[in-house]
């Protein structure tokens, strides 16, 4: 007979990691929490991890992934997606609701939540659909999902815009009852009918139906005014245009409760890549212009944009090995997020590692109301920690990734920074840059 430990039995002593931009510190991890911090710590029986030259940040939290299960297990499963998350340094990921069946009932969100607990690589937090079947007609049972074991706080029809203004207003109002937030996929549907890429100079030459910036900006403008009117929390998914940044900056100055997210790919890639007609660059919202990229970086640095959300969207190969117009939209992102943010934001001098912790952990945990995530690395905090080697350089090879998706737009690029270890509630899911073991959940 073996006893099931309520917490990770092994203690870990992380020696000499820089806490964000701060000095090198030791971290003693025991019983799922950070037991002690300081220099020259020692602990009998603890496994020592030499972290000299590494940076420690609170475990990364992704407010925006697509784990595809249930329904599209050929693209990704909760197991494979959460392995990718752990390798990417994430201790919590939100799984969007556009599965099949849609996560619009307590039953489906509990299923996803349970799959995440069983996998044990990261904290999988289901996002509930705003409307039944993502159809934009009737509200899903938001309260039932909030009260379920999955304790849903983030609701989104992501992939589809809640474009009916009355429905959006009601959703914003209703989730106040349980401190929820509506995460809007801002895309005016009529302005983007058949849209294939950003509408601009490149689409004009390529002869592709354009996805104009105004289709995003007009919805964001409407939604921040609605959020102000009913005093509700609004989160804007994957902001992609300079104009959107301006509108959100204006809204925040007025005290509107709006938060915003940007993907790593929108911080770097532009619609010039579409000239190749390679569908690996097809994504929604589309890659924009360099002017947009620079505005997004500035907005993220000054706090107008609150968080990084990967919008990790794995697809089977046949969904991308085809004509552009036939191809699915989306890119993988979990295993490249850290490196792309380091490249675009840190190495460009716009932010430091403390800011990195804010945009990848503290703020996303706060928006998602995750109590034991996004805590500062100090004694008493839950031991969700990502150890990063900022000096590492690696070349992206999609077929070596843990995600089932091979659709990384960064394939072949050399990127800086590597996740060395990920501690999820005190358990190392990743050690030495490789998957270790999943965490055994309490009482399961």
């Amino acid at each position, binding site marked *: 007979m073996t006893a099931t430990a309520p917490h990770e039995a092994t203690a870990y002593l992380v020696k000499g990691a820089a806490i964000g931009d701060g000095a090198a510190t030791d971290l003693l991890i025991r019983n799922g929490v950070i037991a002690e911090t300081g220099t020259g710590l020692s602990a009998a029986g603890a496994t020592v991890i030499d972290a000299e030259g590494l940076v420690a940040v609170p475990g990364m939290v992704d407010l925006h992934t697509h784990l595809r299960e249930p329904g599209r297990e050929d693209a990704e499963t909760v197991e494979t997606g959460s392995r990718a998350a752990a390798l990417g340094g994430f201790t919590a990921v939100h799984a969007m609701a556009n599965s099949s069946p849609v996560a619009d009932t307590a039953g489906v969100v509990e299923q996803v939540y349970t799959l995440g607990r069983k996998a044990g690589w990261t904290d999988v937090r289901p996002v509930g659909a705003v409307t039944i079947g993502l159809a934009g007609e009737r509200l899903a049972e938001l309260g039932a999902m909030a009260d379920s074991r999955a304790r849903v706080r983030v609701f989104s029809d992501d992939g589809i815009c809640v474009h009916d203004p009355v429905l959006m207003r009601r959703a914003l109002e209703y989730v106040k009852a349980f401190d929820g937030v509506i995460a809007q996929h801002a895309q005016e549907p009529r302005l983007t009918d058949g849209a*294939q890429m950003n*509408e*601009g*100079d*490149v*689409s*004009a*030459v*390529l*002869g*592709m139906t*354009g996805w*104009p910036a105004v289709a995003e900006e007009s919805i964001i403008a409407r939604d921040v005014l609605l959020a102000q009117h009913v005093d509700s929390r609004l989160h804007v998914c994957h902001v992609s245009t300079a104009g959107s940044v301006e509108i959100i900056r204006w809204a925040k100055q007025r005290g509107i409760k709006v938060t915003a997210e940007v993907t790593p790919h929108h911080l770097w890639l532009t619609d010039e890549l579409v000239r*190749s*007609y*390679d569908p690996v660059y097809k994504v929604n919202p589309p890659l924009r212009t360099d002017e947009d990229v620079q505005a997004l970086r500035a907005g993220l640095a000054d706090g107008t944009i609150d968080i990084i959300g990967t919008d990790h969207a794995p697809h089977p190969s*046949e969904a991308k*090995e*085809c*004509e*552009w*117009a*036939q191809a699915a939209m989306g890119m993988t992102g979990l295993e490249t997020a850290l490196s792309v943010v380091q490249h675009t934001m840190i190495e460009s001098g716009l932010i430091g590692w403390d800011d990195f912790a804010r945009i990848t952990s503290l703020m996303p945990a706060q928006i998602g109301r995750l109590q034991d995530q996004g805590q500062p690395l100090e004694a008493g905090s839950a031991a969700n920690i990502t150890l990063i080697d900022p000096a590492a350089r690696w070349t992206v090879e999609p077929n070596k990734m843990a995600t089932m998706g091979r659709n990384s737009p960064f394939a072949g690029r050399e990127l800086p920074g590597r996740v060395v270890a990920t501690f999820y509630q005190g358990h190392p899911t990743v050690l030495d840059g490789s998957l270790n073991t999943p965490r055994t959940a309490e009482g399961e």
Partner: protein
Amino acid sequence: MRHLLSTEDLCKDDAVRILDTAEEMAAVSDREVKKLPVLRGRTVVNLFFEDSTRTRISFEAAAKRLSADVINFAAKGSSVSKGESLKDTAQTLEAMGADAVVIRHWASGAPARLAASGWIDAAVVNAGDGTHEHPTQALLDAFTMRRNWARINGTASLGTDLSGMKVAIVGDVLHSRVARSNLWLLRTLGADVTMVAPPTLLPVGVAKWPCTVSYDLDETLATGPDAVMMLRLQGERMNAAFFPSTREYSRRWGFDDSRLKALDSHGLKGTIIMHPGPMNRGLEISAAAADSPRSTVLQQVRNGVSVRMAALYLLLSGETHTAPATIQEAQR
């Protein structure tokens, strides 16, 4: 030249070479036996994902006059119907030993995708992709313009470009692969281009194009264009709020009888009227204009075969031959 995918990336030397080779091919088409043995044993596949009888038979005639074997593959599909993938189709053609694939597709970029994918080794010829490009149409238009331009200037067309020529392209520029391909090629060959269209049928981003943009056809005609190319108005545009009615479109942007007379009153004796076909008579072009001596519609069709012969010949004959010598030898 490995593939012919667009005129945007076609250099001037290659463009002039195709047009000059097409002159040689035109001579073949004037003979009693309209056939050259240069592509004997080579296989050309016409892979059409979109109906286009005109373009297909033009390519078919071109390949057959070069003695190639021709396979027509009508893989008509739509964005909704999920049939065989482009990859599987391409690999099937590869396994059958296609030397060239002439592809017409409703999706912009499909030929470029086919050429870059590694699914197939054959030369890829873009026979029209979505609203992107239609390079052989632009080449046959340029060929037609060059002959007329040379006739007016009293020179031979061989080896020349279109420097100094003024071309107006009129109509649904937004959705026109013909307009895009013509713009790039005409610029490469030295012509000045004016796009004339309702503002709704010009792409966002047109300001960066190397052309003049006009909303007024009459003003443009008054500037004395040497060629006026009317674009076909597709039926599906007519009820999508691009313009109030087909009659209003026709009045403002159609080449009607009064505009035909205006060419005379402006003293534009040599100005030609072009149309890629099929024409909507009475809509973008009046019957009188289409049938006038200025109209080059049938010349364009005839020249299309010559230009496509030239393109197939240059793509498939490889680097080991020097084009004109081989043709002249074959003609003997």
